[in-house]
């Protein structure tokens, strides 16, 4: 059985390393600040005991006032999983750091989020629309897209 | 004409013109031209039927069975359908080359049959250099195929055409060397003479030569597993991707006419041509051609396709040295007069030699292809 890691425990570890990076945490997940996302992700991947080396998926949820990008990580070695989230409040030009450098599996999924939600991932090697064509107006999975 | 004078009339002599034909040579010529064209077209229809039905049954389905009794008219229906299609020429194509290519590819396929005997002496031209003529003519269609690939200005076509040229150039050599073994034993270059010389089918005397010829022949005419010039899963259709209508029909015809031609040559060289008991000679000939073609269908149904570098490696590292060895051994045997004196010993020895050579080669010397290239 895959054990879901407690968001609170991991949050305290991250907070220790990067003070002020965690926005909130609960039993199921933790939310980190966008500018600390890359550091936190690297910490989660490389720390002994966590070893979250497998990125199951990346997705985004539109909560009208903010976007929440969800990273579902797991470790094949220890067989545990963790959900971390990052929020962006800028609807016009949302930006988050890309995690492609850490997990290459995020490549196509971040492009997909860019296409369907309009969240731009910085330092992504190929930030283009993936399903829709260039010049398509709007981002279909946003809640305000009809 | 003085002997020793180097002229085409001296090199190419028409032998065995039946003296009892009214009008002599010209009637003979006209009659056999009609026969050859008719033979090729009907045989092509026959082999298409065999291929489609045989392949269907081997793939656990029925194959075409709606047109005519047992679907026998399917090739006709195919032909009519293809001929009625619109003729599409890509805008970027080189129009003249695109137009000429099927013609240039088709003519040689038909010309090969000029020297293939259907019966003793029953052939259009009994050239004394018949087999040389076959070898020379059969590689001309490559020019047509390359023109098709180049002229249609399509990348798939170009890839297919280049693969085809590379394959034909490489496989011509083992093909010819395999023939030379037969020529040594028969002591003649005329195909009719070769058949006459086959009291025992040469497949028994030249088992390795037969295998080499069959493989190289398959590669020359793009039959599986060497069909990578028109590999449908890779480059769509290869050189004839951009062809449609009549021109496509020509290529389709070339493909099968060449297959029939190679089967006919194999029959003539290795399987005793028109010779056989009970049945009339021409029927024996057709039956043998069909059998050889069926073997090609069989391999096509079963085998996957090899890669271009493996194709080249197979020709140069495997077939070429083996055909040289085969030639060398055969030459020694002919020198020692085995084909006339010790025929059974020769059969046994040659089969043993085949097994040993293939075994040794596969075991110690041979690697196919080189794999990944750093980019």
């Amino acid at each position, binding site marked *: 059985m895959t054990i879901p890691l407690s968001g609170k425990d991991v949050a305290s570890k991250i907070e220790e390393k990067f003070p002020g990076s965690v926005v909130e945490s609960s039993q199921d997940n933790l939310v980190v600040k966008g500018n600390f996302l890359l550091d936190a992700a690297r910490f989660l991947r490389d720390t002994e005991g966590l070893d979250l080396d497998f990125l199951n998926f990346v997705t985004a949820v539109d909560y009208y006032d903010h976007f929440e990008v969800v990273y579902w990580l797991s470790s094949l070695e220890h067989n545990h999983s963790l959900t971390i989230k990052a929020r962006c409040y800028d609807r016009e030009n949302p930006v988050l750091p890309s995690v492609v450098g850490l997990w290459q599996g995020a490549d196509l999924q971040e492009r997909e989020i860019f296409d369907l939600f309009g969240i731009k991932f910085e330092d992504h090697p190929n930030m283009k629309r993936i399903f829709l064509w260039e010049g398509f107006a709007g981002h279909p999975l946003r809640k305000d897209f009809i | 004409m003085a002997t020793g004078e180097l002229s085409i009339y001296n090199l190419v002599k028409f032998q065995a013109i039946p003296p009892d034909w009214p009008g002599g040579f010209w009637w003979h010529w006209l009659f056999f031209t009609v026969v050859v064209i008719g033979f090729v077209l009907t045989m092509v229809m026959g082999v298409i039927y065999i291929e489609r039905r045989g392949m269907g049954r081997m*793939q656990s389905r029925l194959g075409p069975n709606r047109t005519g009794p047992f679907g026998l008219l399917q090739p006709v229906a195919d032909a009519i359908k293809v001929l009625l299609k619109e003729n599409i020429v890509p805008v970027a194509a080189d129009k003249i080359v695109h137009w000429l290519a099927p013609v240039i590819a088709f003519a040689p396929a038909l010309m090969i049959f000029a020297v293939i005997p259907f019966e003793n002496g029953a052939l259009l031209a009994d050239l004394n250099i018949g087999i040389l003529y076959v070898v020379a003519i059969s590689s001309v269609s490559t020019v047509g195929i390359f023109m098709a690939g180049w002229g249609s200005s399509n990348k798939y076509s170009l890839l297919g055409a280049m693969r085809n040229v590379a394959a034909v150039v490489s496989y011509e050599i083992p093909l010819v060397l395999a023939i030379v073994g037969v020529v040594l034993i028969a002591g003649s270059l005329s195909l009719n003479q070769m058949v006459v010389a086959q009291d025992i089918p040469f497949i028994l005397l030249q088992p390795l030569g037969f295998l080499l010829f069959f493989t190289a022949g398959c590669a020359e005419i793009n039959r599986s597993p060497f069909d990578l010039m028109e590999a449908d899963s890779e480059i769509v259709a290869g050189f004839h991707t951009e062809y449609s209508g009549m021109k496509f029909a020509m290529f389709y015809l070339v493909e099968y006419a060449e297959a029939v031609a190679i089967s006919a040559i194999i029959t003539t060289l290795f399987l005793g041509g028109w010779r056989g008991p009970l049945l009339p000679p021409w029927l024996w000939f057709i039956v043998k051609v069909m059998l050889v073609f069926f073997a090609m269908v069989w391999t096509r149904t079963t085998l996957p396709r090899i890669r271009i570098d493996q194709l080249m490696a197979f020709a140069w590292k495997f077939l070429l040295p083996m055909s040289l060895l085969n030639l060398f051994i055969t030459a020694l045997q002919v020198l020692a007069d085995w084909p006339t004196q010790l025929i059974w010993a020769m059969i046994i020895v040659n089969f043993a030699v085949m097994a040993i050579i293939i075994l040794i080669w*596969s075991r110690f010397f041979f*690697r196919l292809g080189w794999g990944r290239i750093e980019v």
Partner: protein
Amino acid sequence: MKFERYGIGIAKGLTVTIRHLLRHPTVNQYPEQRLNISRRFRGNELVWNREKCTGCGTCAKTCPQGAIEIVTSTDMTENKYVVDKYQVDTGYCIQCGLCVEACPYEALYFSHAYECAKYRRGELVQGKEDMLDRPERKVSGYFYPDKAKELPEQTMLVEKVTEKR
């Protein structure tokens, strides 16, 4: 490639294909030979029972495609709904079967007919009269096991084709 097996692999493959040449082909000739379809067949035609229908509209609510349109009026004398319009645009239907499952009064079935191609999109719209439960329209057993028993058993490839060895 090292010819580790000296062509034995190729020879094995060739025997498999040549054996199939002598076996029965596993295809059947469709317009002449017809197999029985599943007893629970979900086709693109619906059968509607006017007597059982109360006009509740559950089917229209469940339909994920919104292909069912139902208009009812009240019949004050008999104290029930009268279905004025009931039509299904089978062109939009994805044959999911949710409407048949949802119907609380067993008034909606799938039809067991399968050659229902039409020439125009408009003809795909099934009106009230087309959908009526008539004796000549066989009803599929989807979600109604008792109806399924009346239908011919499905022809299975497992049972039909015997391989000659």
